[in-house]
């Protein structure tokens, strides 16, 4: 049998995923992908919450990650609506071309 997994592996996985999310945010150029990177970061944080929740045997972490999910869902709804509007008004999804508040 393999040795059991220490909790810190979960945390490191979470950190890696978060870093990947950041990298996506910094290097991707499509608004939608950038938005997805944000979701990835949120997911990474959720993993930390759940891992700590396991360590302390309390479900508060679950509640937090539940709230994060709910907020992420709301954010996705509004954010995608904004993306639709941006696309309608500017005809582009390249994040670097959306650099002014006014047209």
């Amino acid at each position, binding site marked *: 049998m393999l*040795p059991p997994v220490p909790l810190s592996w979960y945390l490191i996985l979470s950190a*890696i995923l978060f870093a990947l999310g950041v990298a996506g945010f*910094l*290097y991707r150029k499509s608004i939608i*992908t950038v938005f997805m990177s944000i979701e990835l970061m949120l997911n990474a944080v959720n993993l930390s919450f759940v*891992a700590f929740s396991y360590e302390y045997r309390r479900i508060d972490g679950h509640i937090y990650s539940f709230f994060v999910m709910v907020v992420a869902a*709301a954010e996705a709804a509004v954010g995608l*609506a904004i993306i639709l*509007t941006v696309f309608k008004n500017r005809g582009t999804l390249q994040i670097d071309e959306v650099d002014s508040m006014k047209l």
Partner: protein
Amino acid sequence: MDTVLFIIFAVVAIVCGFNLIFQKHPISSALSLIGVMSSLAVLYLLLGAEFIAMAQMIVYGGAVMVLFIFVIMLLNAGTEKASSKSWFAQFAGLPLLCLFVAVLAFLIRAALPALPDVRFGRWFGGTAENIGKMLFTQYLLPFEVISILILIAILGAVVLARKEID
């Protein structure tokens, strides 16, 4: 057994995460993200968070990502174009990322040395019953606030995406 599961799904998550960054087409990225989310759901199950795992699949997998895919299809989002506008992100991003991972790894190793092992089945706290009780007692106010937030988000999305009636 749970070590194997962890390794499999952690690898899947990381690979999918990298795929998210390196794929050129948004829909590939979206699919990779779904992969990450699904493997995270499995990891949640390993950590005894069955409700959160299911919620992860329903909310992220079923709702959020469907929206993403929907929007990608609707806008027919193509592959990205190169751009040199964001010079700071372009040049400082990678060093910062390396630094970030290094710092976090150091902190996890240094500040949290004696973390216990995770064994599946040792703790099943995250049942729907427990979470429901917690939500409606200790976290009632945040819960209500969140529901109002969602209402506002619905209204905002409707207002934003509505066709202008001229």
